[in-house]
C-alpha cells in the first residue's frame, strides 16, 4: 500500500484540477466516504464555487447526454429537449461517486466526452453536439484492490489521490486561494521541448504505455507553474508533475527496463519539417534523473504496479454485471407499459400518439395539450441476459499441481473462447500452501485471462477449507451482482491444512466439511471433479457434503474438463 500522500499534495492536486479541469481530465480520489474526503471535497468546492455537479451512479442516458423533457413535452404537445448533465457541467467539474462500480458503458460515454470536449450524441429525436469541457473527479470507494475506477477512464485523468489511510488529524482546514491570477497565467506558460522529452522518457522507463500519461504530466507541470504565478515551467514543476501523474501508473521499475527491440517501429515520417529529438543525447541528463527519482519515490515497490495491472483487469467485472442485474441491456420497445412495472418509453409512446392527435382533439375539443391514451403506451424492453459465472477452484498443492493447473487454465481459455455466445464469465481461484487466491476475477476477456494466467504458482499444502470458503465468497458476490454462479472444484479432496493455517489432516477435514455444508446451505450449484488417479472416498464424501455433483476425471485434460463442466452446469 502506498503511503497516503501528505495533505498538502492532496490540496495541490485539487488546485491544479480546479485550474485546468478539461486539460488535466481530473483525478481519481480513492478514499472511503468520511471526514477526510469531505474536507478535500469542501476545498475543491471552495475553489470552484457553483461549478461542481454530481453524477448519480444510475444516471439514465437522457439525463446524462440530453434527451426529451417529459413534463414540457406533455404540456406543450410538441417535443421539448432537455440538456444533459454533461453539457451543464461545461467548464467545471463532475463528481462521480461510487466510481468503482461504474459500468463500462458509462465510462465509455464519459471517456468520449473527455476526448472531444463535446457531447456528441444521438438521442430520442434529436442530434446533440454541444461543448462540454470538463474535468471528472471519480470518487473511488473501493475496499478491495480489485475494486477500482474503470481503467479506460482513469487513464484520461491526470492524478490519482489515495486518502484511504489518512486520518483527520493529518489534515487541516486551509482556505483555498483565488485562482484568478493562475487562470490568467495558464495560457502563457511555456514548457521547453526538453520537458516533453523527459516526461515521455520517464513514462517509457516506468513501463507506461499510454501516450496520455506524459501529455497529462506536461499539462500538470504547466498548471503547477501557473498556480505558482510563473510563466516558465521549472525543473521542480516537471519533477513534481511526473511524481503526481506518472507515479501511480508505473508498471515496472526503470532498472528492469527492457526495450522491446524485436519489432522496431518505422522512423517517424517528415523528419525534414519536424525536429526529431536526438536519441541518446538524453541519457545522462541530471534533470531526467531527478524526475526518475521523484517518480520512484512515490512508488515504494512493484506491488503497486501489480495493483495497477489488477485494477485494469478488474474493471470489466462487477460494474457490467451490476447493470445487468438492475435492468439489463435495452433492446427496443414493446407495446404496453405505464402500469408501474415496466419503464415507459416516452418517445415511442409519443410517436404512437402523434398521428391521432388531430382526430382526438376533434373528439375532445376542450382538452389542451397532448392526448395520450393507454393504448399508446410503449414500454422499454430490456434483455436480462442469463449471465452465469463459472468459478474454477483449483487445487494447486502437491506434486500434481503443475499439470492440474495447466489443464484448468486450458479449460478456462477454451470456455472463454466460446463465452461470448454463451454470455458467461469465468473466474479462477487457486489454493495451495496456507490459503486460496483469486487468480482471475470474473471476466469475459480471453486476452485478460491469458495475461493473468501466464504464471501459475504450484506446490505446498492443501488448504481445502479456505478454498471452499473463497469459492463460496466469490459465488455470493456474483449472486449479488445478479448473475448465476457455478462452482467447479478440481481437487482430490484430501485437505491437510486447517482454516487457521495449521497442518494436520483431521482438523483440515473437519473444517472442509463445515465449509462444504455452509456452501450447500446456500444452494450454489457446484461440481467436484476428482483429479486423483483413482477415485477418492474423501473427494466423494466432500462432494456430497457440499451437495455437489461428483465427477471422477483422472488425468483430466482441458478439452475433457470443459466438456464435463458444460455437461454439469447446463441448465436443466
Amino acid at each position: 500500500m502506498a503511503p497516503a500522500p501528505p495533505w498538502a499534495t492532496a490540496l495541490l492536486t485539487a488546485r491544479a484540477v480546479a485550474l485546468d479541469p478539461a486539460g488535466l481530465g481530473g483525478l481519481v480520489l480513492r478514499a472511503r466516504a468520511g471526514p477526510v474526503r469531505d474536507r478535500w471535497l469542501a476545498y475543491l468546492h471552495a475553489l470552484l464555487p457553483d461549478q461542481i455537479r454530481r453524477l448519480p451512479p444510475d444516471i439514465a442516458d437522457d439525463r446524462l447526454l440530453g434527451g426529451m423533457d417529459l413534463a414540457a413535452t406533455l404540456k406543450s404537445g410538441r417535443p421539448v429537449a432537455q440538456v444533459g448533465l454533461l453539457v451543464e457541467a461545461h467548464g467545471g467539474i463532475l463528481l462521480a461517486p461510487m466510481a468503482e462500480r461504474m459500468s463500462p458503458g458509462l465510462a465509455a460515454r464519459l471517456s468520449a466526452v473527455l476526448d472531444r470536449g463535446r457531447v456528441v450524441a444521438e438521442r430520442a429525436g434529436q442530434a446533440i453536439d454541444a461543448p462540454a469541457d470538463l474535468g471528472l473527479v471519480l470518487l473511488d470507494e473501493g475496499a478491495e484492490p480489485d475494486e477500482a475506477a474503470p481503467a479506460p477512464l482513469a487513464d484520461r485523468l491526470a492524478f490519482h489521490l489515495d486518502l484511504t489511510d489518512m486520518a483527520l488529524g493529518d489534515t487541516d482546514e486551509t482556505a483555498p486561494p483565488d485562482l484568478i491570477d493562475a487562470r490568467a497565467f495558464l495560457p502563457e506558460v511555456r514548457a521547453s521541448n526538453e520537458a516533453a522529452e523527459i516526461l515521455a522518457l520517464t513514462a517509457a522507463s516506468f513501463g507506461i504505455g499510454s501516450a496520455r500519461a506524459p501529455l497529462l504530466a506536461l499539462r500538470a507541470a504547466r498548471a503547477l507553474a501557473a498556480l505558482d504565478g510563473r510563466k516558465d515551467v521549472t525543473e521542480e514543476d516537471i519533477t513534481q508533475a511526473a511524481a503526481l501523474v506518472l507515479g501511480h501508473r508505473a508498471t515496472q521499475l526503470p532498472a528492469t527496463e527492457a526495450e522491446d527491440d524485436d519489432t522496431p517501429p518505422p522512423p517517424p515520417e517528415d523528419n525534414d519539417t519536424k525536429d526529431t529529438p536526438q536519441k541518446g543525447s538524453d541519457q545522462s541528463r541530471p534533470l531526467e534523473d531527478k524526475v526518475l527519482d521523484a517518480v520512484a519515490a512515490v512508488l515504494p515497490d512493484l506491488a503497486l504496479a501489480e495493483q495497477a495491472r489488477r485494477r485494469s483487469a478488474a474493471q470489466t467485472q462487477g460494474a457490467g454485471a451490476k447493470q445487468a442485474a438492475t435492468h439489463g441491456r435495452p433492446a427496443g420497445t414493446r407495446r404496453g407499459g405505464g402500469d408501474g412495472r415496466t419503464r415507459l418509453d416516452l418517445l415511442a409512446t409519443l410517436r404512437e400518439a402523434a398521428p391521432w392527435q388531430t382526430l382526438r382533439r376533434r373528439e375532445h375539443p376542450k382538452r389542451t395539450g397532448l392526448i395520450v391514451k393507454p393504448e399508446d403506451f410503449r414500454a422499454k424492453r430490456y434483455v436480462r441476459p442469463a449471465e452465469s459465472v463459472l468459478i474454477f477452484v483449483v487445487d494447486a498443492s502437491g506434486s500434481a499441481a503443475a499439470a492440474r493447473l495447466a489443464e484448468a487454465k486450458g479449460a478456462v481459455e477454451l470456455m472463454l473462447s466460446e463465452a461470448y455466445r454463451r454470455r458467461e464469465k469465468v473466474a479462477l481461484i487457486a489454493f495451495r500452501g496456507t490459503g486460496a487466491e483469486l487468480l482471475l476475477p470474473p471476466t469475459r476477456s480471453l486476452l485478460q485471462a491469458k495475461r493473468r494466467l501466464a504464471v501459475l504458482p504450484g506446490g505446498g499444502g492443501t488448504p481445502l477449507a479456505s478454498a471452499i470458503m473463497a469459492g463460496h465468497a466469490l459465488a455470493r458476490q456474483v449472486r449479488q451482482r445478479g448473475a448465476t454462479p457455478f462452482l467447479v472444484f478440481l481437487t482430490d479432496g484430501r485437505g491437510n491444512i486447517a482454516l487457521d493455517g495449521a497442518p494436520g489432516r483431521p482438523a483440515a477435514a473437519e473444517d472442509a466439511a463445515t465449509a462444504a455444508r455452509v456452501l450447500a446451505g446456500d444452494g450454489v450449484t457446484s461440481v467436484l471433479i476428482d483429479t486423483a488417479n483413482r477415485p477418492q472416498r474423501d473427494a466423494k464424501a466432500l462432494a456430497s457434503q457440499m451437495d455437489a455433483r461428483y465427477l471422477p476425471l483422472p488425468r483430466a485434460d482441458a478439452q475433457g474438463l470443459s466438456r464435463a463442466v458444460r455437461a454439469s452446469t447446463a441448465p436443466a
Partner: protein
Amino acid sequence: MKHPFPFTAIVGQDEMKQAIMIAAVDPTIGGVLVFGDRGTGKSTAVRALAALLPPIKARPGCAYNSQPGDIVPGRAEDAPEGKPVEIPTPVVDLPLGATEDRVVGALDLERALASGEKVFEPGLLARAHRGFLYIDEVNLLEDHLVDLLLDVAASGENVVEREGLSIRHPARFVLVGSGNPEEGELRPQLLDRFGLSVEVGSPTEIADRVEVVKRRDAFDREPEAFLKDWAEQELDQQRAIIRARKALSRVRVPDETIEDAARLCAAVGSDGLRGELTLIRAARAFAALDGKRIAKRAHLRAIATPALRHRLRRDPLDETGSAARIARAIEETLPESSKS
C-alpha cells in the same frame, strides 16, 4: 466542431494508417477494425480520416446523400433531377448510447404532433450512406444495435417498419470500429464484417514517444498553426487517395496472385471465402496506392496480416498470436519471390 488532429501528423502506427488508407481507396473491402491499448491514438486516426476524404457529388439538400438515379423516401421517382453538388464524404459517429430511433430513423415527432403528418425522419444510417460509419468502443455497443447494423451492412439497405411507417432507403457505408480488447471481446459475427483488422500498441522507440507527446501538445495549444504546418502533407495524402481510386479499376490481379491468396488462406486456415476476397481486394488497393498496375505477391504479403488476422479459427491453447501465425504462413507459402 473542432478540427481533428491531422492524419499525417500521427507518429508511427503504419499498419493502422495503411489499413485506413486502403479502406478509403476501396470501400468494398469492408472497413477497418482498430483494436489496441489505451492511449495509442485509435480514435484520433479514424477521426483524422474525415479530413482526407475527397468530396462526393450528391443531390442538393438530400438527407440520404443520394446521387441522381437513387430512389429515396419522400422523393417522387420521376421528379426532375437538379444539378448535383459537392459534399464532404460523410464520416458519421455512432456514439454509445445512441437510441434505435436515431440510428434507423423514425417518425418525425415534431411534425406528427403539430400537424398530424406522417413524415419519416432519417437516422444515422441515412447520413452515413456513401460514407463511413465510425463506432468507437465498438465492443461495448448494445447487442440490439449490433444486430441492426449487421443486417443493414449486409443488405446495403435500411428497412424501417415502425410507428406505421414503411420505409426503405439505401445505406451503404464503410464500417470503422475501434476498441480495447481488455474491455471485452467483439462478437464473431461483427468481427467478420470488418475487412481489415489492425492492432495498435504504444510506440517502442523513445524518440517516437517523445514526438507523439510534442505533436499532440503543439496541436492542443495552437491548433490553427499546427494544422497549417501539416496542410501540405494532408493535401498530398488526399491526392494519393484520389489517384489510387482512379487507378483501382485498372490494376490487374494476375492468376498467380489469386493462387497465392488461396494458398495463404488455406495455410492459415481462415474461415470462408470472405478472407480470400478481402485479401485480393486489399492487395489491389495497396498496389493502386503504390502506383503499380499489377497486384503482386509483394502486395499480398504487405496486407495479409490485417486482412486475415481476425478470420483465423481461434485455438485458445495456441499461445501464438494471430499476427505471428500469419507471418509464419506467409514465409512458408509465399516466400519473397525473386522476380518482383
